[in-house]
């Protein structure tokens, strides 16, 4: 595995060749004055200088809606397995860390073949952040930089990229890049400087404790007034769930075809803020109150999910929920800081 340097022009030629090959290439592109991951058909459209995408790249491992199996009504069923290969270009470190967490969650316990097949078919070219978004706080969550999960990590240094191949798949792609030279000590120093800059800059909302303290903090916060104070304005619109790179809840629905004998079982994104998320058989909703649902999300991020993945905090500080919440109440840092400031911690 190598660490090399290519000029931005050489990198663009590489992307152009990739786009022209039979590979399915997905990358970050402009969408009006925002950005989104989408199929890349023109190397010039790739925007590795983006600040944040509207949706995280999880949509390629866990699509908004996907078929799980085709069935006969009261009969046999056949699983639908995704097998499309993809190169995913431009994943930011915080999203990479979120993907690493999802990989753990979907492979522990009941191994989720749909998610894992998609994931294993994706080659990830991550990139360090060039432009900070208005609400990013990745630095507070220790996710301004990342060191695993990707096949390649790109870091923009002036008019070149440091290209760090971390896997054989990644190395095979680097081998295709003409003009790639071994990175010099000076290049690596520049990369180090980018990392230091991002650790300072990607912090628009500053968490007043170490993220690792959150599970302990939340032990004392279940009855805190902050839940009601904020959720009073909550629309139960689920936007904070939908845009979150670590929200992975889904709902399973069956659809019948016109023959009324066959159908498809699908899963679609769900969200714990939605009114009927916790409605079970008999129409019993065990999280009826907005405040209960609002609290649940912040407990998921700060306590419940960390309990399943060795204490890793399931908020990576991408800031998307802060931007997406029309009521402007979803900011996890504001909530956690309020609790920190008003709770007796001994």
């Amino acid at each position, binding site marked *: 595995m190598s660490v090399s340097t290519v000029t931005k022009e050489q990198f663009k030629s590489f992307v152009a060749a990739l786009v022209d090959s039979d590979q399915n290439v997905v990358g970050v592109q402009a969408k009006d004055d925002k950005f989104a991951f989408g199929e890349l058909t023109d190397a010039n459209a790739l925007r590795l200088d983006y600040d944040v995408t509207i949706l995280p790249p999880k949509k390629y491992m866990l699509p908004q*809606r996907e078929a799980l199996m085709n069935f006969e009504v009261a009969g046999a069923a056949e699983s639908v397995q995704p097998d499309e290969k993809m190169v995913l270009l431009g994943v930011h470190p915080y999203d990479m860390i979120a993907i690493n967490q999802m990989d753990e969650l979907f492979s522990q316990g009941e191994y989720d073949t749909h998610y894992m097949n998609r994931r294993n078919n994706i080659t990830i070219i991550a990139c360090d952040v060039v432009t900070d978004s208005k609400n990013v706080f990745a630095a507070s969550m220790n996710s301004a930089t990342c060191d695993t999960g990707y096949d390649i990590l790109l870091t923009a240094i002036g008019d070149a990229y440091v290209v760090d191949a971390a896997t054989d798949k990644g190395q095979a792609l680097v081998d295709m890049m003409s003009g790639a030279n071994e990175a010099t000590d000076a290049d690596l120093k520049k990369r180090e400087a980018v990392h230091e800059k991002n650790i300072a800059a990607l912090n628009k909302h500053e968490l007043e404790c170490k993220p690792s303290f959150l599970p302990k903090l939340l032990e004392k916060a279940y009855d805190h007034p902050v839940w009601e104070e904020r959720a009073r304005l909550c629309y139960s619109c*689920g936007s904070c769930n939908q845009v979150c790179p670590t929200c992975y809840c889904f709902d399973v629905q069956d659809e019948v075809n016109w023959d009324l004998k066959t159908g498809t079982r699908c899963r679609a994104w769900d969200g714990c803020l939605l009114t009927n998320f916790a409605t079970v058989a008999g129409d019993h909703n065990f999280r009826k109150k907005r405040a209960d649902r609002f609290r649940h999300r912040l407990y998921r991020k700060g306590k419940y999910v960390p309990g399943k993945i060795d204490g890793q905090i399931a908020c990576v500080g991408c800031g998307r929920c802060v931007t997406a919440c029309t*009521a402007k109440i979803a900011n996890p840092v504001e909530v956690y800081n309020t609790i920190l400031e008003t709770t007796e911690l001994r």
Partner: protein
Amino acid sequence: MSKPRVAIFDFACCEGCQLQIVNLEEEILNLIDLVDVVEWREAMSEQSHEYDIAIIEGSITRPEDAQKLEVIRSRAKILIALGACATIGGVNKIKNNFDLNEVRECVYGKDAQMPHLNTEVTKAVDEVVEVDFKIHGCPIEGSEFAQIIRSLLVGKTPFVPDYPVCVECKAKETICRYEYNEICLGPISRAGCGAPCPTAGWRCFGCRGTVDDPNVEAAQEVMEKYDLTVDDLKQKMVLFNTK
């Protein structure tokens, strides 16, 4: 087993929702295979008093329409309200904001006092009779109509979202209108349409009515966060969500 008999009726509306059914084209043949359509003014001349499923398009605006609807209800096993006019009163309810005599004169001029133009306060179908299922939208989504009908035919409760349009809007990765400090009714409006309006750069007009439990108390404070007022919001709600 004999096929379920279906009758389609229209009241005050533009018939655009029936048109959405007609526009299903190939799928409509599948539908006609599975049911006997015994009355449908838009598509056939026959009439019938024997039906299992009655599909009602349009709002109720005259006393004789209310009576006709009650008779239909008494004959049908399942009654479905089709489209915003039927499910929430829709655009026809705008008139409820005005004095009815003025409305009659404005619309019908010198004929305003003719008995068959005796228009009254607009009602959604469920304000007159019990409704079993609602197919929302102005106009309805053909694919949702088809999904609901298929579910009913296999004896499954159809899936109708009780979450806001924002869910579908976000899934499409649309840029939120509020990012430009513009009002959108998405956060209180019922989804199911796939959010075509915000996707095209418009606000959601709320044509599917509100979710069951819209957070109206939040409106004032939230609007202030965008330098908007509750009156701005209310004004946008007149189109589809007049009481």
